[in-house]
């Protein structure tokens, strides 16, 4: 018996020792040209019309090109379209770059653009990006010229045509792919699709016939690492070169590691707490202002987001085109809040509910708000509602207060304001506070229809001032994109919209 036990123990020891000799080898070949990116969720489909989720865009962005490129600094530059001009109030004409080839060898023509946009209009997923385009107004003038008209004058059209959802597809490839097209995408982009191991990884390789500057990388692998901690650890241990979406509680870990770099850049996301302005007592602007004055948003940023992001002063994040950076924040002022409440007829506060879905950060925010509003006598009950019921019931106006986020994916104020504050968008379309103000409507319509960028800027500045004063939201938080990279990664710049381009990445010392 003792002998056996001894044998067992020595076997175990030998096993442990053997392990230490078999640590995974680090790849340190000098000419490294394979980039591994850690991503938190698998793509749903690489057919840009079959989904609107971020992981899919992050991959599709490398495979496809759009007519117009929106750079990381949110400038609009030529993409597949080398030039464009406005023909009339409704119509833009685009000249396509010549000699561009799809990954299947087909040459890009105006017909592909027409086909793509008409197909996009049929999609239930990306109506928010292409909805303004008139289906009859997509016309191939000649092989390299396309005209695109909108149903009404639509100034932000160019930013919409820079969104990855409007990437240009090849008609032949889509028809050949049929129901499986989303699994074998064909684009004109810097990387070609190679393999997709569902739930595990997506592999791309350099497109040697790329019409722009060819990437230095030969291979890009997206690894699906769903657990946030694991993703950070894989970055630390060399399993990935870049990890997307580092969580706030891992920030210091990545920052303190000498082999890693943490990238922090303001993104286009905002979190807000909306009132139901058609319901008592939130139909009184003084109540809404009082609540804004009763809450210290610094506490939310520090406790919930651990210092990541910033307190929101208005409805738009700082780098959205048209954001008014001079808005005066509602700073915490309990006395002023109490005075406003008293004036509105609630000197002792009232009882209300605050809805959130099952999202840890939003639930944390709800608790802080509950705690802080108690100071002015407002008793808040928090209700956690299942996500789709949440979306349906807030769209139907059954709530008092609710927490939600919005990402201005086009980085244009139109996208960040129209759906949320225009009175025509009440309900499902996005305006879940049921806010309406004739002057704001007029300004948002002006911003949407006028081509003069300075006039647009002025309209949006003014609209934000009114919205700030009308306070249909508790302006809560604006976000940051966090990514960690190895020190050897060069040329990686985060895109504020989150779909980072990898064609410029290379490895250095």
């Amino acid at each position, binding site marked *: 018996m003792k002998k056996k036990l001894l044998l067992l123990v020595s076997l175990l020891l030998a096993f442990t020792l053997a392990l230490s000799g078999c640590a995974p080898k680090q790849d340190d070949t000098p000419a490294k040209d394979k980039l591994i990116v850690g991503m938190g969720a698998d793509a749903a489909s690489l057919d840009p019309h079959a989904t609107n989720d971020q992981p899919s865009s992050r991959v599709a962005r490398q495979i496809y090109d759009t007519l117009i490129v929106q750079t990381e600094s949110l400038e609009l530059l030529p993409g597949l379209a080398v030039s464009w001009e406005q023909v009339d109030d409704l119509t833009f004409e685009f000249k396509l770059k010549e000699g561009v080839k799809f990954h299947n060898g087909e040459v890009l023509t105006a017909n592909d653009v027409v086909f793509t946009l008409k197909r996009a209009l049929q999609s239930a997923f990306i109506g928010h990006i292409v909805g303004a385009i008139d289906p009859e107004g997509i016309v191939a003038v000649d092989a390299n010229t396309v005209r695109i008209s909108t149903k009404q004058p639509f100034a932000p059209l160019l930013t919409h045509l820079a969104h990855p959802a409007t990437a240009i597809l090849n008609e032949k490839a889509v028809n050949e792919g049929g129901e499986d097209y989303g699994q074998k995408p064909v684009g004109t982009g810097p990387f070609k699709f190679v393999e997709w*191991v569902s739930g595990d990884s997506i592999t791309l390789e350099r497109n040697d016939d790329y019409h722009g500057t060819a990437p230095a990388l030969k291979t890009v692998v997206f690894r699906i690492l769903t657990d946030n901690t694991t993703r950070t650890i894989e970055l630390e241990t060399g399993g990935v070169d870049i990890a997307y979406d580092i969580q706030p509680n891992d920030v210091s870990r990545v920052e303190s590691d000498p082999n890693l770099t943490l990238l922090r850049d303001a993104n286009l996301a905002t979190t807000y707490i909306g009132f139901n302005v058609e319901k008592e007592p939130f139909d009184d602007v003084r109540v809404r202002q009082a609540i804004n004055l009763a809450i210290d948003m610094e506490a939310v940023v520090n406790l919930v987001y651990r210092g990541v992001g910033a307190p929101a002063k208005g409805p738009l994040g700082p780098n959205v085109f048209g954001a008014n950076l001079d808005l005066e924040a509602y700073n915490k002022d309990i006395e002023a809040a109490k005075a406003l409440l008293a004036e509105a007829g609630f000197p002792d506060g009232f009882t209300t509910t605050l809805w959130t879905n099952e999202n840890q950060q939003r639930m944390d925010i709800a608790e802080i708000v509950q705690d802080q509003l108690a100071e002015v006598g407002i008793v808040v009950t928090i209700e956690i509602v299942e996500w789709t019921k949440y979306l349906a019931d807030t769209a139907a106006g059954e709530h008092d207060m609710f927490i939600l986020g919005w990402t201005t994916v086009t980085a244009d104020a139109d996208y960040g304001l129209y759906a949320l504050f225009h009175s025509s968008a009440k309900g499902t379309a996005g305006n879940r506070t049921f806010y309406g103000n004739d002057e704001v409507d007029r300004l948002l319509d002006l911003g949407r229809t006028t081509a003069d960028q300075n006039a647009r800027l002025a309209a949006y500045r003014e609209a934000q001032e009114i919205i700030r004063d009308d306070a249909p939201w508790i302006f809560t938080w604006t976000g940051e994109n966090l990514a960690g990279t190895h020190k050897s990664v060069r040329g990686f710049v985060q895109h504020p919209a989150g779909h980072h381009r990898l064609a410029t990445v290379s490895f250095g010392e």
Partner: protein
Amino acid sequence: MIKYILRRVLLLIPVLIGVSFIVFSMMHFAPGDPARTMLGETATQDQIDQLRDELGLNDPFLIQYGRYITNVVVNQDLGRSYVSKRPVANEILTRYPNTLKLAGLGIGLAMLIGIPVGIISATKQYSWLDNITMFFALVGVSMPVFWQGILLILLFSVTLRWLPSSGFDTWQQMIMPAFALGTGSMAVIARMTRSSMLEVYRQDYIRTARSKGLGEWLVINRHALRNALIPVVTVIGLQFGFLLGGAVLTESIFSINGVGRLMVESIQRRDMMIVQGGVLVFAFTFSVINLGVDILYAFLDPRIRAQYK
């Protein structure tokens, strides 16, 4: 015996149909519209209606279920994922080996360590060895998989850098997940072995064996263990089922591309087709293992075998 096995295999069919009906109705009546989940907060009512129509979600419940089950039975087709549009069978089958391997390794490790530990504890009842192992068994039962998994990663991947923290292709990648998953079962098996051994020890035939002058090792090995292991086999069979469930968490922590993780993600996305298919596969696996345990039982215990003669 053959007749018995055949009857049990045929019984699988109503079980699987019943399971599919229960899951289908649960997913159907639970809040959460797949179309709205997929389209997100920017969707208009028109877009939601359009997608619901494309997915066939506007039909009455029984028609939807009927369409599904007919397709499964007649065409052996589990349908396509709502989200990725891939065939469900492919999605599951590519991941199924990983889940089975994980659960198998977990239960293997649990047996390899759990049974000897249980025997040692029983033979040295109330000794310091017994106390220590039973203490660790208690810790093992109480420790949640996800917490233990993170601790293992912190120690072996981050601090010592001996083992990779994710993936499931090489044996280095398999150790931690198998261990994390197996610990709970290991502890259960050890405790079961111990109590079962102690019970057998009190039987008359053990006293007889000892009084014949047999060595203690022979008594344990030939007389006590064979009888003590019968209830342990049942526990192992049941534990394997639990491990399939535990694989869900383990797969997420170690980023293993298995059926469990697929199911969790699909539940979150309300991808009912995948959830359905996954549950069917799990139910099938569990039933087959149960059947295997029952058959094994008959082989181990002549008294049971005698009933089918």
